[in-house]
Structures are given as structure tokens and as C-alpha cells.
């Protein structure tokens, strides 16, 4: 029983990391109706910005405090988000969904190449923002880093939910998510709302990098977490901020249970396949995800 509970704790904490990255998909989709497949690469850019403004500047002889490095990184993320929106996705407003889908694939390849061009493919250290080690809670061990990351994810989810449902700007974003033309007729700037969504998406992805990579190494391979988080976002519902961490927990726990009880007899295949099997299952039964918006169109 203790083993099962420990597996559930581990799965929950890992799932909330997936959930955090999935939120970055959701905030972009809510405003722009774009599933950005290159979100893993956006996370890598955030991580490399952070490396640049911490270890990178240190190598040049400037010792920047960690908090200042983080602040400058966030400013860089804002600029990066705006750049993506302005030059890649704004020209595609009103274009067929397939064109936008292909653009996000092209962006994935372009970002991967650009990261390599600017930072090279060298593996790099990532600052240790969160403490290592584990807390002993009775018979259970809880990763300190993942616990702090989980608390942060829950707080961020609550904050973003309040923003989208209580603040004027958040409600504008919700109106844009509902329908671009209606939002325009109400005097809401669709372009402005989409730009805010991209900034949020980039910043949240960078927070994901901090929890995921704290004290570890950054390499271009890290982007693969984007494809782990995509089924989480689809399961939670692409419009649902609160759905992302909940779906993350479901996927994380499922993965951990499969890892503990099925992987030994499937050579590790079960835990790899499970998130994508869940994604396909949900898309078949409930295309809008567990907490997504079900739209009824009247003819």
C-alpha cells in the first residue's frame, strides 16, 4: 500500500510538471485558436535565455545575481513571444487551420535550427533555482524540487484562472477566445489579446523549464517535453487553464502506475505509450477534452 501511495505521489508531482508546460499551450490556444506544436522549442529558448543571463554573462566576466538574470530572461521572453506573434502567426489570422498547423511545424524546425545557430548544440548547465534532495514525510519521500514546482503550478493555475475570469484584460482574452469577429465588434483588440497570449505562453513555458531543469543540463533534446505536455493539454481541454494541471496529474499518475506495474512485463513500453493512448481515447470520446468548451453551432 505504501508503495502504491508513493507511486501516486511521484506521478502527481511529475504530472504537474507536464501540466505546467500544458498551461503554456492552453493560454496561447485560448486567444489565438492555435495549437503551437513548437511549444517544446519555446521552452528550450526560455531555458537558453536563462542560461545566457546567468552562466553566459558570468563567462564574459559579469556576475549577474540570479534574480536579475531571471528578470532579464522574462523580459527576453516577452520580446520573443511578441516576435513569434507578430512575424509568424499574426499574418495567418483568418487563414485555414491547416496553414496554421503547418506554420507551427515550420516554426518548430526553424526554432530548433536557430537555437543551434545562436547557442550551438552544446549541452549547458541550468541554474539550480530549486533545492535538490527530498523531504521525508512519514514513510514517504517527496522530491523537494518537484514539490515546490507543484505548489508553483497550482498557484499559477489559480492566478491565471482569476486573471481570465475576473480581470478586464483577461475577460477580453476570453471574448477573443470565444469568437474573433464578436470580440472585434465589441471593440476588443484581437491583435492585442493574441499578443498577450503569446507573451503568457512564452513566460509560462520558461517557468516550466525552471521546474523541469533546475540544477540539470539544457540540451536541444529537452524540447521533447512539449510532446509529453500536448496530450495533457488535449485531455484537460485546450481552453481550460484548470484542466491542464488536473489532466497532468491523471497522465502523470497513469504513467507512474504503468511504470511500476506494467513496464517490468512490457520492457518499458506501457508508460511510454499510455499518454498518447489516453490522448487518442479522449479525442475519440470527447473531442473538446475533459474540461474544454463544447461548442454548439446552430445552422
Amino acid at each position, binding site marked *: 500500500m505504501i508503495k502504491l501511495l508513493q507511486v501516486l505521489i511521484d506521478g502527481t508531482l511529475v504530472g504537474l510538471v507536464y501540466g505546467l508546460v500544458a498551461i503554456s499551450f492552453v493560454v496561447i490556444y485560448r486567444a489565438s485558436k492555435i495549437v503551437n506544436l513548437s511549444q517544446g522549442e519555446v521552452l528550450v529558448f526560455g531555458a537558453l535565455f536563462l542560461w545566457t543571463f546567468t552562466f553566459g554573462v558570468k563567462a564574459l566576466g559579469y556576475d549577474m545575481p540570479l534574480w536579475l538574470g531571471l528578470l532579464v530572461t522574462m523580459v527576453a521572453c516577452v520580446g520573443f513571444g511578441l516576435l513569434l506573434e507578430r512575424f509568424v502567426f499574426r499574418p495567418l489570422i483568418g487563414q485555414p487551420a491547416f496553414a496554421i498547423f503547418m506554420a507551427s511545424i515550420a516554426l518548430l524546425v526553424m526554432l530548433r535550427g536557430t537555437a543551434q545557430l545562436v547557442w550551438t548544440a552544446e*549541452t549547458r548547465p541550468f541554474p539550480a533555482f530549486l533545492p535538490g534532495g527530498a523531504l521525508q514525510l512519514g514513510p514517504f519521500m517527496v522530491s523537494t524540487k518537484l514539490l515546490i514546482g507543484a505548489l508553483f503550478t497550482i498557484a499559477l493555475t489559480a492566478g491565471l484562472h482569476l486573471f481570465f475570469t475576473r480581470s478586464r484584460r483577461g475577460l477580453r482574452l476570453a471574448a477573443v477566445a470565444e469568437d474573433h469577429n464578436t470580440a472585434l465588434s465589441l471593440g476588443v483588440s484581437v491583435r492585442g489579446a493574441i499578443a498577450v497570449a503569446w507573451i503568457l505562453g512564452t513566460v509560462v513555458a520558461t517557468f516550466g523549464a525552471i521546474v523541469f531543469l533546475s540544477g*540539470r543540463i539544457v540540451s536541444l533534446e529537452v524540447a521533447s517535453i512539449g510532446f509529453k505536455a500536448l496530450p495533457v493539454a488535449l485531455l484537460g481541454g485546450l481552453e481550460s487553464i484548470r484542466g491542464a494541471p488536473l489532466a497532468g496529474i491523471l497522465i502523470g499518475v497513469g504513467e507512474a502506475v504503468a511504470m511500476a506495474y506494467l513496464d517490468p512485463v512490457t520492457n518499458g513500453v506501457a508508460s511510454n505509450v499510455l499518454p498518447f493512448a489516453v490522448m487518442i481515447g479522449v479525442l475519440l470520446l470527447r473531442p473538446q477534452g475533459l474540461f474544454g468548451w463544447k461548442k454548439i453551432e446552430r445552422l
Partner: protein
Amino acid sequence: MTFKTVFAAAAMLAAVSAPAWSAEYTMSASADFSGPFADVMPNAMSGIETITAWWNKDVGAKLGVKVNIKIYDMRYDAAVIARTWPSILSRDQPIMHLGFGSPDLTTLMTRLPNDKVPMLIGTAMVSMVWKPEGWHFSIRPTYSHEFAGLLDELQKKQGRKLRIGAVSTQTAAGFVDQVKGVEKLAATYADRFEVVDTQWVATSPVSMTSNIRAMLEKKPDVILVGGTTAQVTATAAALEELNVKLPIINSTHNGLTEVAKGFDLKKMNGSYSAFSFAPDNQAKLPLRDIYEANKTGNGQWGIITTQSAAQALLALRVLEKAVAKVGKDKVNGQAMYDALLANKFTEQELLGVLPDLDFDASAPFPVGAIKTKAQVVVDGKIQPLGDTWLPVPAFDKW
């Protein structure tokens, strides 16, 4: 003295002082400047180019032979290799190809005997390409052989059966093969080794604490991580969280040098990298002295530079044997293949970077007494594990 006289004298002087090349040969090389190994490629290619430049100057000039290295960015991609190779064949007519990893092997190994171009790679082998009568060779045996040499040493020191835990990934056949090879070792020497658990994880896992916790229930003495650097650091982080100290064993592509770029090695004291060439920081290593004295460009000496320099050196030693056999003007791929199989290469000839090597047509790697070396972390620093080569216990193909 007229201008014409001065010009003629200068031309004669230049002709006398320049090496009298009568034969120029090309060796092509696969690089990966834009794929998964782009981070180590400048150093890898620096090893090949520097050692070839030195050889041309010090050895080739005396033989009347010059070697040109032509590097192609194959992106570690079988499709790129498949479409580039025909043009390399027709344009460069290489006498040997210096390959880089599995894509070169899987793409070229079946056609090389017809193309009559032998390939020599610097990365370790896997059992899938362990076939007789091939024209593909490596300076190193399989990863499993390399691990076996170190595991043999650790088992002897421990004095009882060594319990091995393995971490790998199902996404690459080569990584799966490493584990299967070590399982074969354990089956062959059941009284000395046991693979107690294998955890299959993602290439870049968020956390491996659950996996390592499950593995620790089987009480391993060492944890073998042959996959990615991210898996090595995740294993070390999991051990730290679980407050357990166990040695991690890795290879070169995910080795201690790579891990040290982003992880405090003090947390990995007692962990190892195993590989079958000399450690880059070995106290006495003549090849390193030659590299440092002849280096041009941005490359730096390190573990990957050592590997590629060793690869180039063996290729050039094969050329020397081929020249001795067929003459300096008649070397071709067949002559290189014959020279590789007909001769033994001593550690002294190979400037200390490789052990005595002997190839035959039964396997794509050195046969006979296979040897390996290792590095270990002591007080957060990477050090060679002893000065001598570690013998690899013999075991059959798996």
C-alpha cells in the same frame, strides 16, 4: 642578376623544399554539425584533421603520400548518408571512409563490399552490425564489451557476484543492444554477474526517482546508464533524493565529461565512464602531445577528440601498411581492406591511444584479447582508472 634568374632560382628552391608528393589519396569522413552530436563535432573533426596534417608532414612526406580529408555533414541521418555517398564515391574515390555511428553503419555496411571502400568508425559497435565478411570496422568493440571490461574489474575488486541495475531507453535499438549484451555477459558468467533490474525511461525524463527506487529494491551494486546524458543526470539526481550512493557507469557519448558540463561531479564520486581507448587525461599519452603541437582551428583536446584522433591514426597506419605492400601509387580501397586484416597494430604504433589491435573478417571490431579503459570521479574530478588496460572477458554474440 636579372629578374628571370632570380625567379628561376626561387622556383627551383621551392621545388626542392616542398615535399615530393607523388600520390594523393582521399579519406572521406562523416560529421554531424547539425544533428544530435553537433555539440561535440568541432572537437571530433579537429582530432581527425590535426592528426592527418601531422601525418602528412612527418610520415607521408617520407613515403611520398599525401592524404586529403573530406568532411561531409551527414547530420547523423541515414537518408542524408544514402543520398550523399554515391557522389562521394564518384567525386572523391576515397580509399577509406571515416564513419560516425549507427546511421553510417546501417546505410553503408551492405554496399561497402561492392563499392570496395572500407569504413572505420570511432564509436563503439552494436551487435546488429556484428556480421562476418563486412567492410565496416570500428576501433572499438561493442558498448557491452567496454562495459564488461570495467564490470570485470569491479567484480574482482568486490570479490562477490556483481549486481547490475541498468537504465536505458526503447527509442534507440543501439541502447537496447547495450543492455542485451550485458545480459549476455551475466548469462555467460552467472557466478560473477547478475542484471537484477532494467528500467526503461524516456531520453529526457522529468524525474527518475520512481524508477531508481524500484531498482534499489533489487539491491544493485552499480547502475549502468548507456543512453543519454539527461538520463545520467536524472539517475544521479534520483540517487541524491533517495540519499543513496551508488556508482553510475556510462560511456563516452553520455560520459562524465558531458555530465560535468551541467552537474556537480562531487555528487557522482565513484562513478565511471568506460571506453576502449586511452583516457584524454592519461598521464602519458604521446598522441595528445602530437595533437597539441599541431592543432589548428577551434578544437580542444578531450574525450571525443581522443576518439577521433585514434580513429584517424589507425586509418593512417593502415595506409602505411598498404603502401608497404602495394607501393605508394597503387593504394585503393581493396589494398586498405587487405592491409587492415593482414596486419597487427601495436600500442606503440598507435601512440598509446589504442591497445594492440588485430582485425579479421569474423567481426567488425578488434578480435582476440579485447581491452578497455575507464575514467572515475574522485573528489569531483575525472581521473583515469589506473594506467593499464582492463581485459574484457570473452562472451558470444547475443
